[in-house]
């Protein structure tokens, strides 16, 4: 985005004016701070086994604040490490899918004609391919739970929709007179894409990205359910919640802590995405 793009201060202001989005931003800030700094406050290590404290419910004071799991690992520290990993994974995966999607969609939309037709047909075909199966093949092939494979899998799934959105936006932009004006000025195609088209579709794309991140987190949890996500002893929100769900009746705290963090995170991200979309809507004031 070019330096100091115009809608930015105003869009952020409009975003901040919305109570829902403001709360979401604040809670998100707290969650990120917790993920980064939170484990310092606890004496426990995420993978340390405490044989004297197996499957203990939460206790205050010097104990395990969110309880322990069946191996005696501290759930407070593990939840925050899981949050950290889930955040990082989903952010990078969203970033990857955005980059591919923006490049693919804007080139297809700007080139138009036959190139556009072929590029979008590729997207259509990939859409009809069960992406789950690709991810499973990838993850089960290389090494189960390899973070790289997870990233490629998650990012590779997300870019299709981004490419469609970006292409539709580019097509709409391409017909606008300021793009014709740029051509009349003598700019080359590449310059027009980078200087005029991409900055103008960043708003929509950002709002969409805020909605992709929660999908990535959910998808990772889904992979954890299949045993293909982040592997023990590493913690992700997905495998913690899945582990907790299996102990729902006997040890509800194992589910409650991680699930609460997961729900709070997803609620805030969704709310933020909606808020961003509304704030960028030119008809809103």
């Amino acid at each position, binding site marked *: 985005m*070019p330096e100091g*793009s*115009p*809608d930015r201060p105003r869009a952020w202001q409009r975003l901040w*004016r919305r109570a829902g989005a403001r709360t979401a931003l604040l809670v998100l800030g707290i969650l990120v701070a917790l993920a980064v700094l939170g484990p310092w406050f606890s004496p426990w290590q995420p993978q340390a086994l405490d044989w004297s404290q197996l499957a203990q419910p939460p206790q205050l004071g010097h104990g395990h604040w969110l309880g322990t799991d069946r191996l005696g690992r501290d759930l407070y520290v593990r939840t925050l490490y899981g949050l950290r990993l889930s955040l990082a994974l989903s952010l990078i995966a969203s970033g990857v899918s955005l980059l591919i999607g923006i490049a693919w969609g804007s080139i297809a939309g700007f080139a138009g004609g036959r190139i556009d037709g072929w590029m979008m047909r590729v997207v259509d075909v990939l859409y009809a391919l069960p992406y789950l199966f690709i991810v499973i093949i990838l993850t089960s092939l290389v090494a189960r739970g390899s973070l790289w494979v997870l990233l490629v899998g998650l990012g590779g799934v997300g870019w299709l929709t981004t490419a469609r959105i970006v292409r539709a936006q580019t097509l709409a932009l391409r017909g*606008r*007179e*300021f793009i*014709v*004006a*740029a*051509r*009349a*000025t*003598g*700019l*080359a195609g590449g*310059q027009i894409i980078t*200087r*005029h088209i991409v*900055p*103008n579709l960043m708003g929509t794309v950002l709002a969409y990205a805020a909605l992709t991140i929660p999908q990535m987190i959910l998808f990772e949890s889904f992979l954890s359910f299949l045993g293909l996500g982040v592997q023990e002893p590493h913690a992700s929100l997905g495998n913690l919640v899945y582990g907790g769900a299996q102990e729902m009746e006997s040890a509800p705290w194992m589910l409650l802590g991680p699930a609460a963090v997961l729900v709070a995170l997803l609620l805030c991200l969704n709310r933020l995405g909606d808020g961003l979309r509304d704030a960028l809507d030119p008809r809103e*004031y």
Partner: protein
Amino acid sequence: MADRVLRLSDFSVRFATAAGSVPAATEVSLSVAAGECLGVVGESGAGKSQLFLGALGLLAANGRAAGRAQLQGRDLLGLPARELDAVRGRRVGMVFQDPMTSLTPHLRIGTQIAQVRMRHLGEPAAEARRRALELLRRVHVNDPEQRLLQYPHELSGGMRQRAMIAIALAGNPQLLIADEPTTALDVTVQAQILALLQELKRETGLALILISHDLGAVAGLADTVAVMRQGRLIECAPATELFASPRQAYTRALLEEARALAAPVPAQASGEAPVALEARALSVSYPVPAGGWGRRAALAALSEASLTLHAGESLGVVGESGSGKSTLARALLKLVPHTAGRVVWMGRDLDALSRARLRAQRRDLQIIFQDPLGSLDPRMRVAELVGEGLRVHEPSLSAAARRAAAQAMLARVGLEAGLMERYPHELSGGQGQRVGIARAMVLAPKLLVCDEPVSSLDVHSQAQVVELIAALKRETGLALLFVSHNLGIVQRLCERVLVLYLGRMMELAPAGALFAAPRHPYTRELLAAIPLPDPRLQPGRLSAVRAGEAPSPRDPPSGCVYRTRCPFAQAACAAARPAWEAASGQGAVACRRWREI
């Protein structure tokens, strides 16, 4: 006439926004009687539409109306929703500006008319359908039986607006409110719609409120004219009185500008200069989907246009939407690919240039667009927008020098340096168009193509921008190609005028000759459709307007494309295309009967 159908007293409309409560209309008092037409005139944002939307409870959710709005003696404000629904459509019909967006897209025209009759008059479906057909006939829709079954997008703009009027009349209302009913239409279609409203008023005794930004449009209809500015009613008088002796300075200014645009001074022809731009048999066609799966047909947007433009000369191009005038402008600059013909600039064939050479050549060939805000990248500041061309064409220039050049050019087009850091949405329409002009002129071009540069501006800015373009042309000696549907502006600015219709050249003549003695029947129709801001002459001109609309460019008539609307058409006109004949006094015309008529 004592029976006022609608009377607004101390009527105000306010909107609650994030920045607080904003007034749209303040303490307005107006009334209209049966058989009478009230014209409400003002620039956009003057609050003239909100007034009547407010009276009928149709404001956006954040709007509030106050005061009194009496319909046949009964106050509409505070009426429960059910009773208000019994008024809307039944007592008051409304026609909105843009018939495309104001008609429900997924419902057939007949259904939309019949719904109103079934709801308000309790007619059974079959009867309502029969009446819908009558109504379409009443508003002179062609092929009404077929139109009943069609969807809004299948109709032309003029037919859509007629259908809107039929819907508004369906409940047999006592009052018809037409909110800018012709703004989105071509000048000849505008004249036809106004003529229809005039006929309805005369024959039905309907009270009519005509809202418009154009004094000329209301001159033919209004018995009383109300002028609004910034939400207030500043003047209200019988039409003849108001046009003859306006009391407010603002009204006088509006009137003068309307007259200046309608009856301008002829421009003087310049001496012979070398040919700068030449188009030879230029044709542009677009592929359009044709019926079945993936099949395409060619839509001829421009056919065999040939013209020469001398250095320092200004050529006007006029025509209605679909005439190919914008296509011609863009094809000359190679912004749309042409399918046949040649463009030669200063003796050099533009088609023979490589891409890079063409981009370099663009420096001499600049363009300004219709929509000032749409043609400026919303994410760039004014300084960047104006400097961008220099960045491309003079890469050696330092950022500071570029900025200085941009600033000097902005000063030249009458913008303060303080605007340099603004974004397009922070500019008014007039300011935006000046930025567009500065962006083009900063490159010191030799040709400036103006594609409808003032049609989206209000009357006041229009005159100023036209004046600026004229001054720049005088000072720099650039050649000008000025595309517009507004003949008045073209006459003021251009030495020669080219008239296009359905992608073909109809007539080319020196401006003075064209306006004084138009040769082509289409040119005559265009001239007759210009609304005159004079209530003594305009009603008579409206009554003389003939029906007929341009056929679809997908399916142009054989022979002379104008023959389906031409009052002089003969069998021979359908057989062969008329030749492009040179006429006396540098002109040329494509009509086989121009000598006789």
